[in-house]
């Protein structure tokens, strides 16, 4: 019999021999390939490869081998992480036919732990966006309401988990790209501390901000996956050589005595009334469970978006310079000369949001504007980081909303880049400061759309962060609700 659709349940059953990896992967694949249940979450997948890998896992078990902690678990991976199988498009035309010849660090880790990567998920082009509407291919639908976005940029991974196509997935988070779609889709999304997970094989966007993290249906599964993917990797010089705790074993810390910080800056104008009340109810529940709720101040949080859109775009303009039509990716068919080769290949290969960000970043770094924009933003980044350092002297975690609203309608913000940027207001500071943060479901609005609760913890404070989020889930059921499949057309 098929176990409950969770990472822990599947891997336990597969390791015991109660369930086969092949059956587990086949079930995911069948839903992925069904017209009703896929929500345009995946850009591409490889059924045969996944089933072959699954059969090998079953054979190894039959031969008496001990299987890894993710044995037989079908997983989805955002298409900005390199895989030696299939394409790695980054949701961009410029990489439409790009096939990496190596696996990202996280792919190696997942598959050597027994997971089977069944496909690559949709994203905003180069992870730049908050809705997957910037994907060059299509827009992922929100399983709770297919007329709405799944969020972004890891919208495909979050929709795939919300629809239970897979029990877990990986996303990347540069300014909220795991947490915001997790909130919109009613799943758990963790952005680890900067340096916790190797970025080797992740196509770079903002190198001082990017982190890969797990997306799952509950905190336990997220903890298990983090344990597998975290740790030092010499191929990423910013990967920190620090022991990886047994996150799963330490989830059972009681709520009593936990200090939760609340900052009024996260509850100001622009926050939807229903989101506010769901987040407030979650905080009240934790206080009832023995947590101490303390008021703190993050006075520079409101400058986060302005700071981020200079720092992230400056880094992006430099990182995306590698797409030049010479070594890989799209090349314009008949270039006149080398300058035209660069300009036309990039002009034809990149979509509008990527162009805007490259230009903004180029401008912020250009001679005469560097001090006024880029350097200024780096100084404000220090102030934002200092605010967190000070806050975490007083509290264990900070609780806040993840996004100001629930999932918005497809097309609602796509013509106004600034309005789209503002939807990242509560998530962006964690990336600037390098701290860890998690989004967990904490209720629904009147339209039945999920609301997310964010906890932020100090750098390398994942142990506490996960334990506190887990304690919240022990006393609530929001994360257990599953969207109903749309009626047959």
């Amino acid at each position, binding site marked *: 019999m098929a176990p409950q659709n969770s990472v822990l349940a599947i891997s336990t059953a597969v390791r015991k021999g109660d369930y086969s990896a092949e059956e587990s992967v086949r079930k995911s694949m069948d839903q992925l390939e069904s017209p009703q249940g896929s929500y345009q979450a995946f850009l591409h997948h490889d059924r045969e490869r996944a089933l072959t890998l699954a059969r090998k896992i079953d054979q190894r078990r039959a031969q008496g081998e001990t299987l890894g902690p993710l044995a037989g678990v079908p997983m989805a991976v955002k298409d900005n992480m390199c895989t030696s199988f299939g394409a790695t498009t980054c949701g961009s035309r410029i990489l439409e036919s790009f096939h990496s010849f190596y696996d990202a660090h996280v792919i190696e880790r997942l598959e050597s732990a027994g997971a089977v990567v069944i496909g690559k998920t949709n994203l905003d082009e180069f992870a730049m966006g908050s809705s997957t509407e910037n994907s060059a291919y299509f827009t992922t639908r929100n399983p709770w309401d297919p007329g709405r976005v799944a969020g972004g940029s890891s919208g495909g991974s979050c929709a795939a988990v919300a629809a239970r196509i897979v029990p877990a997935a990986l996303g990347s988070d540069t300014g909220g790209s795991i947490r915001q779609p997790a909130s919109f889709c009613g799943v758990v999304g963790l952005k680890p501390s900067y340096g916790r997970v190797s970025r080797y094989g992740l196509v770079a966007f903002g190198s001082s901000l990017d982190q890969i993290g797990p997306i799952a249906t509950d905190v336990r599964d997220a903890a298990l996956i983090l344990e597998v993917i975290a740790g030092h990797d010499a191929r990423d*010089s910013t990967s920190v050589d620090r022991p990886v705790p047994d996150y799963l074993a330490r989830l059972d810390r009681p709520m009593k005595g936990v200090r939760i910080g609340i900052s009024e800056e996260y509850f100001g104008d622009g926050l939807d009334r229903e989101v506010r009340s769901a987040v407030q109810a979650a905080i009240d529940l934790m206080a009832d469970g023995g947590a101490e709720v303390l008021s703190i101040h993050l006075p520079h949080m409101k400058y986060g978006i302005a700071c981020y*859109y200079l720092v992230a775009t400056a880094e992006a303009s430099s990182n995306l310079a590698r797409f030049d039509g010479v070594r890989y990716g799209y090349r314009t068919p008949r270039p006149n000369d080398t300058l035209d080769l660069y300009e036309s290949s990039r002009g034809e290969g990149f979509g509008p949001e990527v162009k805007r960000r490259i*230009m903004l970043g180029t401008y912020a770094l250009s001679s005469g504007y560097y001090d006024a924009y880029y350097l200024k933003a780096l100084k404000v980044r220090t102030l934002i980081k200092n605010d967190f350092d000070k806050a975490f002297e007083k509290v264990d975690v900070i609780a806040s909303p993840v996004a100001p609203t629930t999932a918005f309608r497809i097309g609602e913000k796509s013509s106004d880049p600034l309005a789209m940027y503002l939807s990242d207001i509560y998530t962006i500071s964690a990336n600037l400061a390098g701290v860890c943060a998690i989004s967990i479901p904490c209720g629904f609005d009147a339209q039945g759309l999920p609301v997310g609760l964010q906890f932020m913890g100090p750098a390398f404070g994942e142990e506490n962060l996960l334990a506190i989020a887990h304690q919240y889930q022990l006393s609530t059921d929001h994360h257990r609700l599953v969207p109903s499949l749309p009626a047959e057309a």
Partner: protein
Amino acid sequence: MASSLDEAAVRHVARLARLRITDTEAVLFAAQLSKVLEYVEQLNELDTRDVPPTAHPLPVSNVFREDIVRPTWTPEQTLRHAPDCQDGYFRVPKVLDQESS
């Protein structure tokens, strides 16, 4: 800070970034980027004269490894994705006589 970009400035930045943009894009980007620049103006409310910049959240500088020979990508692998290559090289349009063209 110059908190707006006109079309000419947008074209200049596009040239610096090696991006071909259309006339329509130049008009659109000028308006959209000006709006973003106007928004980031708010950073000037903060006095940052004595604040050091943070380019990176971790206090890391150079990370060295042992200088030993290890296997790496072969030329064939490296050239596999090249839009055009010949004799083990990436191939591009003629560069040298561009001044005269």
